[in-house]
């Protein structure tokens, strides 16, 4: 999936991937897609939950060999 920005959160645990993603999304424009790389499995449930609360869109969660890629589209104003 094509992303406008990538955030490397490999090696970070809750709440840091969410905290950093929230900061990053703030800097992005509506419609842009953020790719978050992580290895903390918690993010698979945390990111959709974060999106549900903040009104952003969780497009996809891909996992291969322990690395998790999460794609979030900024839809909040």
């Amino acid at each position: 999936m094509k992303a406008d920005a990538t955030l490397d959160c490999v090696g970070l645990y809750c709440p840091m991937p969410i905290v950093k993603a929230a900061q990053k999304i703030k800097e992005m424009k509506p419609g842009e897609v953020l790719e978050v790389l992580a290895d903390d499995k918690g993010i698979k449930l945390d990111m959709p939950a974060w999106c549900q609360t903040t009104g952003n869109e969780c497009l996809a969660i891909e996992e291969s060999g322990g690395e998790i890629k999460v794609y979030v589209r900024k839809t909040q104003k």
Partner: protein
Amino acid sequence: MAEAEKEKLTIVVFSGELDKALAAFIIATTGASMGMDVSMFFTFWGLNILKKNEGPAGGKGLMKKMLNWMNRGGTRRLKLTHFHMFGLGTAMMKKFMKENHVPSLDEFIKMAKDMGVKMIPCSTTCSVMGIGEGAFREEVGSLAGAAFFLNEARQSKVTLFI
């Protein structure tokens, strides 16, 4: 989200152990990341989390000085609820936290402040425990009482007691 439509999260921090403090700050910083307006009320042993690490123990008069010396507080002196083991268990957990890039409690407090989390010490327990002005670190806001807490809690979607 506009200020008026932000959801509120209110946390009462009653406990002064390192693990409970971390839990409180993890939830607070995550709440702020989720666009929530977060207030933390510190009371009784929770006040120790906010005390400065350096400087004199403080307190006016011999008894208050003694109480603050015994109940010194500060992030560096907090113990774990279990397995403190004279500091050995706590030191081990701090080591594991560092190895796993988990922020320290000091870093969490600074992060919370930067994210707009309000940290409010309870004025009554400050007086009951002989804690004077200037005892708290710079991130801490002004003192307040139960009415202020209840007014925040009343409007909150989530209220926790830790």
